[in-house]
Every structure is written in C-alpha cells, then in structure tokens.
C-alpha cells in the first residue's frame, strides 16, 4: 500500500487502549487507522494476543482497500477480517481490495509498540480478538465520511445516512460517493467516543458466504508466497543441517562443492548447544550460490563429519520404554479434586487404558524459506511466517540491530499449522546475509522440513475411571508421560512444562467429583512445538476414546453417556486458552445434530460401525460422526464423515466450512498414517514417501460439514475442526469390529488384529 501515515502525536494517549490516526494518502485518498499499543502481547510465542491494527483507504474510483494485519496461512483471515470492517463502513464487498500489512513495530519512550496491534496467526484468535475492534474501525470511518458530506451540504450529520459506498441526505435528495468526501473526511478529527455498531440482524456482509478474496491470483499463479521472493542481486542459499539431534559439525571438506558452477560461498552455521533455547534448530554448513539448483548441488557435494551429540541412544522404542517406566512411578499432580484415592477404593468397577500419541511433522506444502538483507544499520526480511514479531526478534538476536530498524514483510504463507510460529529459518537467513554482506534467499528442501521441525509432542496417556454399582463415574484420572512442547523454551520453569500437555480445565475436569491430572516429564532430544490445536489433538483422542470404553464396560450408549455428562445449558468457568467459559451443552447440541444426520440408532451390520466424538477447542465446539466398514481381513473403508462446528457466529460461513473440511481431513490424514520416529538420535522420515499425507484416493466418499451458529462472539476456526475426528474414527472402528485402537497412527493395526 503506497499510503503514508500522517500521525498526530497529540491523539496518542498511552493510558488508553487505542489511539486514532486519520490522514490523507499520497494519492489523496482517505486513510484511517486505529492501532493499539500493547508491548507484551506481541512477544507471546503462543498466540497472537488481543490487540489489532488496521488500514482503510478509499480510492478515487470509490474502491476500498482494507489492510489485514495477520498473515494468511490458509485460515481465511484475508477474507474474514476485512469483512468486519466493510460491514460497518457500509461498502459493497465487491469493491473491497485487501492488502497485507507489514509488521508495525515502533519505538516509543516506553519501549517497543505495535502500530497495528498483535499480528501473529496462532491459537485461532484473530477473528475473536478483532471482532469488536475492526467493526469499530469501519463504523468510525463511516461516521467521518458522513460528517464530511454533511459539512459540504451544510446540514446536520443526523439528516444523513449511508448506502453502500454513498452518503445520502434525504432532505436535500443529494448523494455523494465516499471517494468524493474522502479527502475532506481525512482532515476531520477522529470522533472520541465509540461508534454505535449495527444490530446483527442488519448485517449485509457478516454471516454471508464469501469466496477467498484472492482466489483469482491463486488460480493464475500470481499469488506471492515467501518462496516467490525475487530481489535483483540476491543470492540463493541452502544449509546441510546436522542429522543428529543436538549434534554438530566436526569438520567439513567443501572443495568439491566450491567447484559446482554457481557456488560462491560455503561456511559453517553454529546451532544451539544441547539444552539451550532454539534460535535455530541445528548446526550445519551453508552453501551460497547464484541459483537454488546450484546451491542444492553444492550441498550434495559437501563432505561433512558430524559430531553425534548427546542423544545417539534415543529411539522411538527407548521413548516408549521411558514412558512406561515413568507411569510405574508418580509425577506432578496438576489438578486434584475431591478424594481420588478414596473414591477409587470405593469403586465397584474400574476401567483403565493406555493410549499412545506419536511425534508428527507439520509438513506445510511450502517448505521453509526466507529472504534476508542485513546491512550495517538495518535489515529487511520477507518471510512466510505466522509470527512476524518473532521474526523481528530473531533477526535482532542474530544481528544485534535495534528492533525498530528491522523491517519484516509477510507474504502469503503456503500452510502454517503452527510450524511458522517459530522463526528459526528467518534467523538462519539473517546469519547467512550477515556473513556474505548482501541479500539472500534461504531455501529449505522437503527433506530439511521433515527432518528438522518443532514436532507435535509424543506421549503415553493412562486413564482410569472408578464406577459405582449403577455405572456412574465417581473417580477419574488421566496420567500423561510426555515430552513437553515447552522444552527449551526460555522463561518456562520445569514445574510449568505440563501446561502445554494437560489443560487443567478441559472436560471432564469439573464434571467428576474425584478427579486427578498427573504429568510425568519424558526426556527427549526431539524438538517440539505447536501443531494445529496443540495438545487438544492428543487429549480429545484419549478422553473421547475412553468415554466409549466406559460406555462399553457399563453397557451404556456412547451418545447418551456424553449427553448425561455434558448436562444442561450453562456456562462453566474455563481458565485455559479459549475461555473464560465453556458451555458443554453446546457439544450435546452438535452431537444430537450429527446423530440425526447419520440415523444414530440404526442397526449396522456387515462389518459396519458408527463412532462419535466431540471436543471444545479454543472457544469453539466441534463434533464428528464417522461411519466405517471393516472387512474380515482388516481393510478399513471410511464411508461417511459428518462434521459439525459451533463457532458462535460464523463471520464467513463458507470459510468456516472450508476450515471444518480441512481440519477433518488433517485429522484423518494424521490419525491414519502419520508418525515421526527416531533411530540412533536421528529423525527417520525424510519426504512424502515415508511421511504419507492423505491424497484424493483416500478421501472418504462423503464428507459433510454442518455449521451450527450459536450467536454471540465468533470464535476462530483454524483448529476446532480437527480434534474430535480421530476418536470418532477409532470409536467407529470399535463399533464395527470390536478392535480398540489405542495407538496412533492406525496404519496396519487392523490388519494385524484381524489375523
């Protein structure tokens, strides 16, 4: 966007949550920004915190450009966020163009501030956090346009209203387009008070299905991703990273690499010491060349002697052995309601099971890459990142430059899934640019991406329930031995590592009087991080599988068991991310809906079975019903999936459906086949031949999505469509053939069980 800010310092009041900026663009258009100041929020690596920024520009042709602060990773923010502004601004959606805003870091007397508010894409927070605010942005701009027209007509603002893109004065029978009054509006002081927002019944844009705003650019190959960055004079670089966890470069011979035409430089990259926080993931050798292919060929010609590091004894087998040993002992009690031990002694029946969750890779289809140009006093970064403030901080750590001198631009991102919340590849690019003294684009290969990741944590869960004579659950414990996502994260002490693994307020906490959660720390050298719907993927699988095991043990119906537990329509306190409340009845509502869709009570024969599951994730409610057929030889056919979500209010129902479909398929792909394993301290898998993401051929014949709005505040949709799929699938498998899958991925377990 070529617009420039005209910033009125007097309007800035650090004590208020927001300050307003009105001004003219270089082209004479009207520009309005209501950025927010929040110093700490941006430094949260977990989520984009609750502050926002925006940019509205009305051009001479009455088209409207709306800036979006968060990066588009496929979750649909480039469409949904501008819809909020456009609704209250009162413009035709078809007249809106959307532009990505860069990281808005500024230095103030009080420290760093964020011109556009929080810009991270994580935790399904963007729409919820910006729901009020972006509508206020649109409404404020509309008021200023009305006021400018009223002054021109010399009438009161009260006698004017708007129609899409127009200010109308009924008493005069006059109309002015927004572009006619934009320049005058830009000179007005920004109204002090909050504007009145529309009654949702009046929404014309919010709640109406909209297509992806840049679909045309995508299907014509014009959409620009990080990998497409091409700056005159830039070099191309790749890194051969140490394959051993926390290993290093002992020595290397680059004589053959330097003979490859186009290779211009080869040097060592120093990774973190064992146990240190990750600025980058691994030590390695960088090859810099005049093209990507030359760099890749140069890398292939390297002869590197690795030091193998401290984890050569680690393997997937040793990991599971460790979890079993830990579960024999006792761990950290992180929630303890009532008298669990006594209640278990009193129980008439005990049900117990263990479940295994593997490490998994994020595998976004666009491999990591980053353009970096580090100069003496400034740096320019162009990256596909979910956390641009983290990219800025990483480059500051590498270069020592002041953060305000590090410009970060975000491209469209070829998939996030949590991988790009960490900016290790940005730090690597900055290291290389610093060393060669010029601009460079770092490119990862697929092998780099599969073998070097912040993997979704692996763990073994033990769940035990005590039941009374009527089959009611009187005591419940979940004990988890896992490798925490918070491993090597600065500022997270050991006693808080559990927080990324067990969410203390998650169902069934608070529903069973005698309830205990226990965590045991597994030692592992495998890097871990946030993977779409983080620990909800593991916990939903465990809890929703175990509910069916309890139902089976007591002869209860799995749906009725859930409905009885979830209970009546009420808000319960929920302190984890997505709170402050959780209404379990909204899960019942979804379950009853999908049960109706699949004719729940129908008897199924011929190896057919039905499974259901539901889960509350980050403020949103999701449920799945899966119908399968299992042959006598263990061939699994998924005949139908019905997915339902309640995200409060669906800002863009078509985008919500897309996320529900995508989340369902991601859940299916991961549950069926995906696992990262370790042997001799190295990651075993390397590309799509041994990390087989789901393809069209494995797509079930029918996948239905049902969006069931509840009203109120919209929640995000990036993550809630995923967690309940896996347990619904394995519950269906049990219902079909009596085999209980307790270890993910499912892979060939059914065939083995049927032998």
């Amino acid at each position, binding site marked *: 966007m070529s617009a420039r800010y005209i910033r009125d310092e007097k309007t800035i009041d650090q004590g208020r949550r927001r300050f307003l900026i009105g001004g003219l663009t270089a082209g004479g258009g009207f520009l309005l920004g209501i950025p927010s100041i929040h110093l700490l929020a941006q430094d949260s690596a977990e989520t984009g915190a609750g502050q926002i920024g925006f940019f509205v520009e009305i051009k001479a042709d009455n088209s409207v450009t709306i800036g979006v602060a968060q990066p*588009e*990773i*496929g*979750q*649909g923010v480039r469409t949904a966020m501008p819809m909020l502004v456009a609704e209250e601004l009162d413009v035709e959606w078809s007249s809106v163009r959307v532009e990505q805003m860069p990281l808005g870091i500024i230095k103030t007397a009080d420290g760093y501030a964020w011109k556009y508010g929080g810009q991270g894409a994580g935790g399904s927070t963007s729409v919820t956090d910006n729901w009020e605010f972006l509508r206020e942005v649109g409404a404020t701009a509309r008021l200023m346009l009305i006021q400018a027209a009223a002054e021109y007509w010399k009438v009161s603002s009260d006698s004017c209203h708007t129609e899409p893109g127009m200010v109308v004065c009924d008493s005069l029978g006059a109309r002015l387009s927004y572009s006619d009054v934009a320049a005058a509006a830009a000179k007005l002081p920004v109204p002090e008070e909050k504007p009145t927002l529309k009654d949702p019944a009046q929404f014309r844009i919010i709640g109406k299905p909209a297509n*992806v705003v*840049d*679909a*045309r650019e*995508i*299907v*014509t*190959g*014009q*959409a620009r*991703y990080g*990998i*497409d960055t*091409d700056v005159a004079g830039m070099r*191309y670089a790749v890194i051969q990273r140490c394959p051993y966890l926390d290993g290093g470069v002992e020595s290397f011979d680059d004589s053959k690499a330097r003979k490859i*035409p*186009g290779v211009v430089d080869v040097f060592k990259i120093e990774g973190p010491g064992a146990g240190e926080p990750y600025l980058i993931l691994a030590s390695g050798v960088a090859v810099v060349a005049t*093209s*990507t*292919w*030359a760099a890749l*060929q140069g890398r292939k010609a390297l002869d590197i002697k690795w030091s193998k590091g401290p984890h050569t004894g680690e393997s997937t087998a040793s990991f599971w052995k460790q979890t079993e040993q830990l579960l024999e002992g006792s761990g950290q009690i992180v929630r303890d309601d009532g008298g669990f031990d006594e209640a278990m002694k009193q129980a008439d029946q005990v049900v117990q099971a263990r479940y295994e969750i593997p490490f998994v890779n994020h*595998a*976004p*289809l*666009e*491999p990591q890459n980053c353009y970096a140009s580090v100069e003496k006093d400034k740096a320019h970064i162009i990256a596909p990142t979910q956390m641009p403030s983290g990219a800025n901080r990483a480059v500051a750590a590498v270069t020592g430059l002041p953060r305000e001198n590090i410009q970060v631009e975000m491209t*469209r*991102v*070829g*998939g*996030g899934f949590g991988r790009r919340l960490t900016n290790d590849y940005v730090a690597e690019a900055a290291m290389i640019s610093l060393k060669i003294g010029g601009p460079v684009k770092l*490119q990862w*290969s*697929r*092998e780099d991406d599969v073998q070097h990741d912040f993997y979704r944590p692996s763990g073994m869960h033990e769940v035990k329930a005590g039941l009374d004579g009527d089959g009611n659950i009187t005591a419940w414990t979940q004990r988890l031995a896992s490798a925490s996502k918070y491993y090597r994260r600065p500022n997270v002490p050991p006693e808080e590592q559990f927080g990324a693994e067990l969410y203390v307020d998650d169902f069934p906490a608070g529903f069973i009087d005698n309830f205990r959660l226990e965590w045991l720390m597994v030692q592992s050298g495998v890097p871990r991080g946030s993977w779409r719907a983080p620990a909800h993927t593991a916990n939903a699988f465990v809890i929703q599988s175990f509910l069916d095991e309890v139902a089976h043990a007591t002869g209860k119906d799995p749906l009725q068991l859930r409905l009885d537990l979830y209970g009546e329509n009420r808000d319960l306190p929920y302190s984890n991310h997505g709170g402050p409340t959780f209404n379990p009845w909204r899960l019942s509502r979804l379950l009853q809906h999908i049960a109706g869709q699949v004719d729940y009570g129908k008897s199924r024969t011929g190896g057919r079975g039905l499974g259901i599951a539901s889960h509350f994730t980050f403020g949103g409610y999701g449920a799945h019903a899966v119908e399968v057929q299992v042959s006598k030889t263990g061939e699994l056919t998924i005949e139908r999936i019905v997915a339902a979500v309640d995200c409060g209010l669906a800002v863009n129902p*078509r985008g919500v459906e*897309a*996320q529900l*479909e*995508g989340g369902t*398929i*991601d859940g299916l*792909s991961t549950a069926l086949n995906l696992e990262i394993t370790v042997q001799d301290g190295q990651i075993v898998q390397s*590309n*799509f*031949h041994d990390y087989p*993401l*789901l*393809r*069209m*051929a494995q*797509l079930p*014949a029918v*996948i239905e999505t049902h969006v069931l709005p509840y009203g109120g505040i919209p929640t995000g949709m990036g993550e809630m469509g995923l967690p309940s799929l896996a347990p619904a699938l394995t519950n269906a498998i049990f219902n079909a053939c009596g085999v209980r899958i307790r270890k993910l991925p499912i892979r060939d377990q059914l065939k083995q069980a049927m032998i």
Partner: protein
Amino acid sequence: MISFVINNENVSFEGVEDTPLLWVLRDHFKLKGTKFGCGIGSCGACMVHIDGQARKSCTTRISSVAGRQVTTIEGLAPSSTQLHPVQQAWIAEDVPQCGYCQTGQIMAAVDLLKEIPKPSDSDIARKMKNICRCGTYVRIRRAVHRAAELMAEES
C-alpha cells in the same frame, strides 16, 4: 544451450543441463506460479504441461525439454481477461485455502479432463494424485466436476 517454448514463447537456457525444469522456470524465467514442494516428483505442486501432457517439473531435466512446448499455470488461461474453465471452476467452488498446491492441482485437472471429459469420483481419485496439505480435496473434486460441465458447454 537448450531451446524450447514456454507459454508460446521461444526461449533458451544456457545453464547446467541437469537443472530441473522447475528451477529454470522459477529462478531463471521468474515464472513463480509453478511451486516447489518435495523435489522427488511426489506431491505435484510443480506440475506443468510438456507437449500437452502433465509432467512434474522438479524431476524433469531441462535437457529433456529441448525443442518441446512447456505450458505453466501462467500460460493456461486463453487471455488475460478469460480464465480456463478449470480456473473458473476453482474460483466458483472456492477451492483454495493456503493455495500453494492449487496451481499444480489445476494443471493436473486440465490433464485429467483432456483424457476423461466427464470423470467419475473414482476417476478423480485415481488421476488426481497431488497433495493438498490443507485438505481441500472435497472442493477439488467438486471443482473438477464443475469444470467438466463448463467445458462440455463450451464445446
């Protein structure tokens, strides 16, 4: 020097002969719509047409393209104002999420529809092998059917 045709334009490339077509398109000719996903011919993000047939450009050596016609996503639409029916169908069915794989998916779908003008779901399952990490397969399937209808109407 290797001479060939990209999107109806005669071009030549003087670099290393074993360079994959993908990197020649992207780094040398600055055609960025063809994507890098795996480098082993598995995911299909790099799909182009060579003499009218779908090929994975990441495993196609530039030397093998000499004298041949390469079509990339940038050259698929008949004109700057009119999109190919497959592209139209992709927009109408609102297929993309992150969008990264979609140019390759579209090139694969064009190839499929050339061979099977009215494909069944199982034809689509058999022929559309490209990976979509976002899981847009349901919409891809719908878009292929819609494109088949659009093309039938056109002809």
